[in-house]
């Protein structure tokens, strides 16, 4: 089936399988920033923005984005670079598999929350799991990014 949607600020027309998830469709089309982690919308590794809200793309049928707006890490490269630099400055990046998903949640959080405190940040990013870092260094990086990144 054919879907038409806005992907990273450009209108695209994609042929998709009716049963495909958004994650599968993105990766099949070469956008590999979103990754498969858990298949059950539990880990946040596949986070993308659907109409500017973070969603687990493994749990969104590709057909559902027809007529909507999707933003992936490939579409927010400047912010991703600044976040990546803040993470690397703290040694928080580690294996990096969860980083693009975290970037997308942070991008959404910046739009939604003004000057969030640690509790709000933890709560907003709760769905982005990381198995390497223990989160503490990520929190240091996020604070630094929010403090100096805007």
């Amino acid at each position, binding site marked *: 089936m054919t879907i038409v949607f806005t992907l990273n600020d450009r209108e695209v027309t994609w042929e998709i*399988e009716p*049963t495909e998830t958004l994650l599968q469709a993105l*990766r099949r089309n070469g*956008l*590999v*920033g*979103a*990754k*498969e*982690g*858990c*298949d*059950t919308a*539990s*880990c946040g*590794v596949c986070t993308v923005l659907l109409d500017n809200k973070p969603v687990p793309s493994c749990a969104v049928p590709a057909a559902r984005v027809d007529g909507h707006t999707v933003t*992936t*890490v*490939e579409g927010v*490269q400047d912010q*991703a*670079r600044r*976040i*990546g*630099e803040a*993470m*690397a*400055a*703290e*040694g*928080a*990046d*580690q*294996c*990096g*598999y*969860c*980083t*693009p998903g975290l*970037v997308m949640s942070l991008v959404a959080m910046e739009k939604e929350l003004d000057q969030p405190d640690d509790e709000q940040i*933890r*709560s907003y*990013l*709760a769905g*982005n*799991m*990381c*198995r*390497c*870092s*223990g*989160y*503490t*260094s*990520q929190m240091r990086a996020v604070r630094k990014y929010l403090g100096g990144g805007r």
Partner: protein
Amino acid sequence: MNEVGKSLPKIDGVGLALGRPAYTDDLAPRPALVVRALRSPHAFARLKSIDTAAAEAIDGVACVLTWRDVPRVAVTRAGQGHPEPSPRDRFILDEYVRHVGDEVAVVAADSEAAAVAALAALVVDYEVLEPVLDFEQAEDHATVLHSEPEIHENFPIGFEPTRNIASAYAMHVGDVDKVVQDAEVVLRRTYYTQAQQHVALEPMVCATWLDLHGRLNVLTSTQTPWHVRRIMARALEMPVGEIRVNKPRIGGGFGGKQMIHGELLCGLVTRRTGKAARMVYSRREVFAATNTRHPMRMDITLAADRGGHLRAIDMQALSDTGAYGEHALTVFMVAGAKTLPLYNKVEAVRFGGKTVYTNRVPGGAFRGYGAIQGNYALESALAELAHELDLDPVELRRMNMIAEGETSPIFAIMGEGTEGVAMTIDSCKLPACIDRGMELIGWGEKYPRREAGPEKVRGVGMALAMQGSGIPGIDMAAATLKLNDFGSFNLLIGATDLGTGSDTILAQIAAETLSVSTDLIKVYSSDTDRTPFDTGAYASSTTYVSGHAVRTAAQKMRAALLTEGAAMLGCAEKDAVFDGAEVRGPDGAISLEDLSTRLLYSQNQKQLCTTGSHLCEKSPPPYLAAFAEVEVDLGTGKVDLIDFVAVVDCGQAINPNLARVQVEGGLAQGIGMALTEEVRYGKRGTLLTGDMMTYRIPARQDIPRLTVELAASHEPSGPFGAKSVGEIGIDTPPAAIANAVFNAVGVRVRDLPLTAEKVLMALREGRAK
């Protein structure tokens, strides 16, 4: 030092944040056959028949393989040195399936849909057999898991498959029974540790294809490319030289990728079809069909005098290796070898027991590798002894722990699978780690407990840990430096960065040795065709062992630059110096940029290329002092972590940020093992925790605070004074948290994890469980 000791950003960090293609599935060739396995719904069964006709008839299906179609060669999937200390007890596919999730058959098809349809079309007639599900009943059980004539041990490891025993081990120093008999105080306790899953966020992924020359290329998310190549060659009956294994970026390993997973099936599909193939494990498959930490029962006896001086330690363990014996003996041995030397003043020490087969997901390598199991038992028992003697648990440790300049006979007796290597401890900053840790947690004010509101009590607990730095006499690593024109270097290493930042710290070591900036070192890691050998990323070896190899290669490069620079300057080598920027002689200088460019294009032309190898001769332990603060809800038994303090002696940190985060990440995994993580099974051996909703790793809100500091330390035998840091962080949380819970509410739960239910039941019983 200019490069070592600096918290440089990880060289791949920004590229990964940008989402650039980096991991196996990002880079795997397309198109490729989709490889999927049919997995057993039974804990133990014989495959009476498999009808593949309907599956093979499906459009797009390229091949269907069953146990009748694979080479009958016994292998182990443990990524260990050659010959492996694990039993060779499995085949690519077998007539028997031995746990829910074990591989029944494999299909390969043009599309995911065709592969799924083919799996559904396979008709399997199972003869369901009685499984062994309780590891304490496994030895000499009526059900024998392994009776295949081809399986064997590579050297004596106590392998007795007819009795369901994968390995056995025993050692002793002195007469434990006599000391126990004479001792003023004897404490006997039993502790249980559970199966834990690695849950690296990238699942197991591999891709295989034949190159121009017909060689089998393997792109895979592995910690051990050379072991994968060697074991694949054996299993597929091909020469090692006909296989190339390459690992790209890895999305976490933690030991889970120190086993072979899809590589054998995927490689066989490519061999049979000639086509590229790709196998991506679903999360359910990761849980059901890879490996877990070995669950253990630890029976521990401590003998001491009334003053708290330990006189003997006896640790007898039973380990559950599940359906296959991956890392069975070595994990078992580490439970003693990397805990007992901490308390080296004893008159006698004994350690031993067996690893048994059950019809569960196989045990395997997992960060800590036995040390966390042993640590939980030993450090809990010491806290119990301190309580019984009415001693401060910190004082009890101080009185008995190992110190610089000392040794333990265990180092020589116990290695990993073989004898160990005697060594003297040249760096041990435990006293400083303990002092600083007590200060950071506020031990003086908080020990043992304080009320934290209605129905809530806070307590603090502590534990010490040691680990190793590589496997002495076995772990070998090599590195090659190649000089490029205009003064950059390629650093080619077999060391396998699985997300730890080892590529970065190895570049720092090369840069420091050459007196150049780290950004001139271009790292390429882990490709059996294109980089030198390395045993792999395990046993806390990379910084200490691979780091040495890199330093040696860089020292040789430095010498070569001096030779060539002096020749170009027309001076004697002894009169020339190299400062990283230029070679300077009495009458002039030549820049590195100029020298390197002339060497390739115009003068004294040659390629400078140097290689260093390093065999680890000792294994200096890093040390860690841990302090946990918990809050226990008296009404529900729920344990919340308030703070976890760890002060670690890892020698000189090559990159303090990355070292610190290694410890923080290890702590978080250990906290998960202490509080929430547990692989659970139903009555018939069905896996109940097959996804990340039922198997709960710590989320951001479970870890409010980790306080990690590195103690000033220098290990004389390490590269620039470094020891390892990758594993030690995971060891202490189970014991430190269990001890904190006891100090808070007076209940002692002796089986992990410390769930609210167990704590509440113990509270209700009003006594230690």
